[in-house]
């Protein structure tokens, strides 16, 4: 069983996001990039499968800011191999349709049984990776996956359908899954383990040369939502604010 986990970097949403000069993308020079949280869930699921069977796990990512950190962390957590795809501009926005084609081009030379990736990334304007990759490779796929069960050559997945309803289905292998949550919270790799991985393991680089033309949405402008002036901001010390909040609750007879 060979599992490929497709991971990527994404702007850290907890930080301030500035829009660039021409107003159509985030200002990538000033953004902190971190690993996409749902890809971390996909990696965790792959490693859990590896823990219970003899699967091998390859992690693949496009060259993007600080991606080495993500790949070494994956190796430190137990992935067998890490591959970085080059051949595009690593400092630009690679849209999901193009990303899928680049990963498909890598997978064309790989034997794999399962591809796991995160259910979404916050800049998936052109759709989410799992379905696009599945369709590009012409293999089955499922998204919003919260359960993966592999028995021999069959795959059972559980998908959240909204409102708590869960759909269970069987897919033929190979397949692509967009993981929403792994069976457990993503494991942690200590700095020491990551340093060790950096010293003892190598990230493999592969160049993908590809003319990608997919029909896509043309972004006219990217902008922060106009403040609706919704929230009245409560200021002062913690005690002042707490008093105000409790007054609101009391006025409604709630406490």
């Amino acid at each position, binding site marked *: 069983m060979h599992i490929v986990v497709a991971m990527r970097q994404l*702007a850290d*949403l*907890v930080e301030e*996001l500035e829009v660039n000069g021409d107003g159509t993308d*985030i200002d990538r020079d000033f953004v902190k990039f971190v690993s996409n949280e749902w890809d971390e*869930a996909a990696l965790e699921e792959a490693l859990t499968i590896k823990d219970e069977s003899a699967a091998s796990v390859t992690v693949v990512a496009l060259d993007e800011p600080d991606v080495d950190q993500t790949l070494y962390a994956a190796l430190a957590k137990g992935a067998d191999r890490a591959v970085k795809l080059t051949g595009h501009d690593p400092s630009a926005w690679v849209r999901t*349709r193009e990303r899928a084609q680049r990963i498909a081009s890598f997978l064309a030379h790989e034997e794999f049984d399962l591809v796991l990736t995160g259910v979404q990334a916050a*800049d*998936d*304007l*052109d*759709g*989410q*990776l799992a*379905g*696009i990759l*599945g*369709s590009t490779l012409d*293999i*089955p796929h*499922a998204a*919003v996956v919260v359960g993966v069960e592999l028995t021999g050559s069959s795959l059972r997945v559980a*998908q*959240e*359908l*909204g*409102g*708590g*309803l869960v*759909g*269970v*289905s*069987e*897919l033929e292998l190979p*397949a692509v899954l*967009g993981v929403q949550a792994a069976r457990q919270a993503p494991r942690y790799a200590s700095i020491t383990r990551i340093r060790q991985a950096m010293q003892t393991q190598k990230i493999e680089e592969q160049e993908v040369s590809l003319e990608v033309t*997919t*029909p*896509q*949405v*043309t*972004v*006219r*402008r*990217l902008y*922060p*939502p106009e403040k609706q002036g*919704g*929230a*009245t*901001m409560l200021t002062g010390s*913690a005690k002042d*604010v*707490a008093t105000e*909040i*409790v007054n*609101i*609750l009391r006025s409604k007879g*709630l*406490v």
Partner: protein
Amino acid sequence: MAIAVLVVGERVAGESPDVTFELLGRGRELADALSGELAVVVVNDLDEGAQFGIADVLYVVDGMDSASYSAPQWEAAIGAVIQRVSPQVVLVSTGTVGIDLAGALATKFNAPLASYVIDVTAQGDKLVVTSQLYGGKLLSEGEIDAFPAFVSVLPGSLPVEKGRAQGSPRVEHIDAGDQLRLSKGRGTELREPDTSGVDITSAALLVSVGRGIGSKENLELVAELAEAMKAPLSASRPVIDQGWLPKPHQVGKSGKKVKPTVYLAFGISGAPEHLEGMRSAETIIACNTDPSAPIFEVAHYGTTLDLFDLVPELTDIVGG
């Protein structure tokens, strides 16, 4: 008349989700602007055509197993309908069914797709779409000038009542048997929601906590406040996925929809999937150290205080 807009009905079990009617309402406007018909497709034969009165045509795909859900089968079925009727615009939601199908079908038909859409209009021979990116921190305004175009709309973005209308659209049955036989997946089971434990949907006050709490140990702090306020503790998805609280506590798209008198949110950013579950609370009070957190867009009162400073004060006043 040609089909201008095809709405994908996303009902798997129970009633059609609200988002289907949001899509129908907007679909009607788009179809009129594009001078074509509005169609809706459902993949299991159901006797609720009457609800789809706003549409001109209802396509029913025959031969699907309606007791379960399978992504490849739905893709095959909807793909067969698109192939057959060649709509200009396909409307789906950014929910599970939409996430499963939209990217895959757009790729298959080599067509553009706009996702996370909160607004879509026709302007001349273009579609103009507004999408919510980066967890709601930025909006993208874009245009599409190639058809068919796929548009995936975030549930809760468009008016829903407009889409509900009595009436009887023309019903056409489509046999996707050939495509379904080739599909490499099948549904086996539908599991109903877990209804054990706490019921967060009936409380007048909810103390809700997000990833900002940092750890399971820290959760105790907010649990004490909830106890002092005699209110249930609810949470955003990461808190549940980390195993800090059981699933019945989850608010949002894949959790519960809540509508308390007051929703107190601590350390919750306000991602669209969370807002989907609580935006209709009567009063929302949010505590988040990030002044640009999207939660402040829906909150009525906000504070950028650190929750670790604010919560103990609240507990003090209420409990003491």
